[in-house]
């Protein structure tokens, strides 16, 4: 690939990935695009991304082929390999000969040797002190990444990191929103029901709450359900006649 077209591809990829984040955001889409573009641009046979699942165990989340899926899994199985090292140390790891692989990660070399990759370049997905996974490139042809390539690859890894953290923040805040919404709805309807009871029975708010709790206890139903019925009855919204 010529330098000019490589540059263009990189820019196009950055734009494409940024679009994914701004537009209809889909994290899976983002990661799949990332691995396939990475492999293309850097002349790698394959690329894969490792991320921890909710319980902390690492998973191969996106991968360009069965082969690279497998090599990811093999490292997880052997509990060693370049992708794990990148994740654990926060430093990029490059190996470009079989001997080096065998020396550093003997168990992994044993399992993965037959897969035939000649070089591997593993980058941590990292934002300041937080390492959230690794982006990994695997090559068949001789000649691993140049320093320049490694820098460009780092740029793609950074985009992946930001995309993942962004999506995570969104997801967590959505859970928070739902929980708060539910709590708010309960609080509001209960206060309204107190008001209804206070006016209807000429009692104060504490007494009204006492009545409300009594009804909930004796019918063994949640406070907010009783409250809702009381408010609906008072406002003439009840389905059954009073």
């Amino acid at each position: 690939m010529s330098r000019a077209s490589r540059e263009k591809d990189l820019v196009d990829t950055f734009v494409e990935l940024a679009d994914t984040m701004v537009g209809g955001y889909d994290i899976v889409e983002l990661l799949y695009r990332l691995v396939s573009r990475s492999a293309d641009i850097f002349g790698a046979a394959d690329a894969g991304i490792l991320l921890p699942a909710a319980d902390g165990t690492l998973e191969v989340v996106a991968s360009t082929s069965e082969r690279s899926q497998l090599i990811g899994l093999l490292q997880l199985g052997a509990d060693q390999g370049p992708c794990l090292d990148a994740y654990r140390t926060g430093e990029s790891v490059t190996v470009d000969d079989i001997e080096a692989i065998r020396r550093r990660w003997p168990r992994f070399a044993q399992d993965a040797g037959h897969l035939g990759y000649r070089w591997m370049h593993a980058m941590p997905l990292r934002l300041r002190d937080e390492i959230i996974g690794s982006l990994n490139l695997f090559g068949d042809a001789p000649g691993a990444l140049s320093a320049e390539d490694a820098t460009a690859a780092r740029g793609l890894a950074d985009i992946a990191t930001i995309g993942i953290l962004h999506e995570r923040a969104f997801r967590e805040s959505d859970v928070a929103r739902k929980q708060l919404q539910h709590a708010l709805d309960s609080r509001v309807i209960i206060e309204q029901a107190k008001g209804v009871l206070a006016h209807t029975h000429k009692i104060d708010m504490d007494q009204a709450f006492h009545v409300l709790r009594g009804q909930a206890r004796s019918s063994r139903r949640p406070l907010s359900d009783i409250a809702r019925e009381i408010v609906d009855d008072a406002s003439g919204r009840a389905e059954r006649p009073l």
Partner: protein
Amino acid sequence: MPTRESPPPRTLCAGFVSALPIGHAAISTLGDPFDVETVCASDAVAAGLDEVQLDTGVGPCWRAYSSRSPVLVRDLHHEDSSDWPMLTAAAAAEGVASTYAFPMVVGAVGVGVVDLYAEHRDALSVRDVARALAMADAAARHILREAMDHLDVEPGTGSSSRRFVHQATGMVCAQLRVTPEDALLIIRAHAFATGRSVREVAEALIARELDFSE
């Protein structure tokens, strides 16, 4: 009745006043999943001006909240401030000439708005605006965390300042046989017509000084 464990975030508002060239700051939550209420204010001026916006349902804070962008009203007594006449009038009475509303958002949650009020027009520089944005971000997280921490409070015993309004709403439902939405509308209309705040009308209803069924 249990009270809130931590004090209201008054320091949040004070922080805006000391870090920026403005005289008053208030922070309000403006709806689901929060109540519509002012959670802190640096002083009575800020509290009062926020109350006007919340009671009337119009103002820079509402616009900032729905658009999720800051609304910078550099001159309250000029520009398109005919959009919110009651706020403009109240601001004039308090010697406030400009106001800046910064939405607080955490991921998918619209937490509310930080409202800054200044005696001078054009009080905030570009750098001030950037700083205010960063501070609003931090305030958003703080308020969301606080709210999450209070999730376990038993329903009916929480100390939201808005609870009087909900209770009064219930009373009006029973008095007039209307839905809570209509009841609140009636309360707001009465507040507007009598020049009182929604909260004052709510308190009058609860104290039996006011009864719409009579």
